[in-house]
């Protein structure tokens, strides 16, 4: 039941040339359920997802959300933690008990480390503290949806003529081997695992470095430009792209 095969491609939003439509560039259409009691916030999300070519339903409380999540076939659930009637964590727990394994992203005003741990322990797959930027949310939701598709368990990732071997830890561009530091390797590995998807700075910090705080200075950009100078410098086609206002993407083909 991979969503890739199930979902028909919806029409993309008209290209306005802004950062968001850059971001939706290659993404497949997703079906999402937003369980959020703040109507304004929910409507904003529904609209924003629609503009980026996805379908989003909205449930205003925990009970309704639980019922809809049971019935509907969603790619990702976006669950607010504090909900009327039934709180978000208990909704997730109940769904997991019923063997509903739809990926869940928890949205919460509680953003400290321990809150996050609690959310993930309850069965959430990702945790995004409020306030969030939509591009961050979209990038994370896309990663979750894609994960459901069961891709990226390969031992070798390939994007264009760039090849990363996860077993031998070797990176080749064409016929040339590119030596990378261990952390650079993990950075590239994560980017290539999510090739064609936007990866935000926070996602990199969380998944490559395992930090959940905001560094005061944007250290990730420097790491990226170092990596870029190793894998793209001297090659005609750049593979590591900066997506303005959102993050980075590894993809074939210049825009």
């Amino acid at each position: 039941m991979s969503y890739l095969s199930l979902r028909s491609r919806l029409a993309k939003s008209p290209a306005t040339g802004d950062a968001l439509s850059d971001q939706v560039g290659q993404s497949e259409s997703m079906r999402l359920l937003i369980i959020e009691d703040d109507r304004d916030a929910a409507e904003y999300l529904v609209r924003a997802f629609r503009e980026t070519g996805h379908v989003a339903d909205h449930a205003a409380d925990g009970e309704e959300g639980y019922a809809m999540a049971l019935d509907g076939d969603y790619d990702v659930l976006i669950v607010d933690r504090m909900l009327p009637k039934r709180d978000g964590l208990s909704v997730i727990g109940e769904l997991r008990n019923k063997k509903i394994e739809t990926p869940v992203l928890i949205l919460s005003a509680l953003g400290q480390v321990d809150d996050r741990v609690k959310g993930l322990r309850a069965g959430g797959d990702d945790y995004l503290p409020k306030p969030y930027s939509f591009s961050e949310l979209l990038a994370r939701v896309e990663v979750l949806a894609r994960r459901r598709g069961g891709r990226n368990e390969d031992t070798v990732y390939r994007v264009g003529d760039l090849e990363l071997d996860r077993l031998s830890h070797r990176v080749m561009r064409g016929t040339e081997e590119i030596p990378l530091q261990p952390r650079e390797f993990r950075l590239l590995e994560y980017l290539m695992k999510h090739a064609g998807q936007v990866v935000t700075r926070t996602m990199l910090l969380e998944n490559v470095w395992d930090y959940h705080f905001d560094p005061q200075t944007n250290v990730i950009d420097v790491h990226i430009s170092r990596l870029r100078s190793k894998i793209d410098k001297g090659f005609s086609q750049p593979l590591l792209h900066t997506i303005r206002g959102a993050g980075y993407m590894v993809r074939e083909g210049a825009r």
Partner: protein
Amino acid sequence: MGALGKLFRTTAFKLTLVYLTIFALFAVFLLGYLAFNTQRLFTDQVTEVVNAETTGLTEQFNAGGIRRLTFIVEARSRRPGSSLYLVTSPTGDGLAGNVGSLPTGVLDQSGWTETVYRRIDENETSELHRALIRVSHLPGGFKLLVGRDLEERDRLDNVVLDAGKWSAAAVIFLGLVGGFFVARRVLRRVDAMTETTQAIMGGDLSERLPVGSSGDELDRLARNLNEMLDRIEALMGGLKEVSDNIAHDLKTPLTRLRNRAEEALRTARGEDDYRAALETTIEESDSLIKTFNALLMIARAEAGQARGNMVEFDAAEAARSIGELYEPLAEEQGLTLTIAAPTAVPIHGSRELISQALANLVDNAIKYSAPAAKAAGTPSEVVMTATTDDDHILLGVSDRGPGIPAADRRRAVERFVRLEQSRSVPGSGLGLSLAAAVAHLHGGELRLEDNEPGLRATLILPRSGPQTQPLADRRAPPDPSAAKS
């Protein structure tokens, strides 16, 4: 029960009752012991005298026969006193003495008896007296009785008993009155304290409890409570200052945000202008969110709420990891970042928070020493260290930047303080405060020192792990050159 009931319920009064009971029991025991011993002494004396007289009279009988005995007994009987005598013939007739009648059979047995009797000069209807007597059977069937009236002993008993009764009454009365006054005095002082505390609860934090001059436990309590109030007042003052700072540092960017939006509405000519204005708006709000998150984190760390997530980990590895995260940035800024963490430094704590604290210190070190390095054109270095001494884990970050003047170091870790010279450098101004809060959470402190030149910031954490420690220890830094801890 009213005021009196309140008095009876006081601890002082209850204590009085307990002591009173103990004292009364003791007095009863003492008097009983006294009475018993007096009686024994009296009996011993009587026995001795009677024995001596019996011996003397028996000797007289042996020497001079019954005639001599009766003569002497007759003479002795006439003396006033409580001595009793009787000599009887073998047929039981009284020959001499001052005892009139006795219960029958008393004379049949020789030896000691306690009995009742009447004197010879008393008639049949008069009251019987009690006596201790010794009967001796003399040769020829004659019987000799020598004894002593016991009225004296009974009188003595009565005296002791009376003394007991009266002294018990006096003890109880005085005890109750004493307890009443002590309780009332204590109650008055406690009432005064209660009144003051109510005024304090009403909002007047400057009130203080009355302290007497006696230095007793109530005074000590009042003094301690007063010191506590001083602390609370100081903390409240600090809190107010902090909230003023928060108001200032959150409102300033909020105002800027609002002004930008307003200006865009007023002056924007086209889509590009609006777009630019919106982009800066988002940037500003992002930095506001960062500030806000940092504040929340500081508040939580200071309140000790993050202790739940503590684990064992290697602080040296954490330092290397942060160093590696910042190394490219340092290089880009013309600095070298070196990490001296040769051995594992096991620590019990929050890896995330300690990493964040180190990240802030490195971030600051790079931010403040980069301009100097650029101006001088020479490479400057930032050094991270992770070492231990006997009791502490020392995680240090030192730079060759302008440093912080000794006078400002204490202020530098306060929330939102950014020293004058750093106004032009972007940042929330919370980096050092956050590092200090993380150090506190782990039971340690953040120390700022002169790196000659530059700044050396060190997280000093106890090896034994975080312990709940009294606030007082955290307020006053042990070393005046150390930063606020």
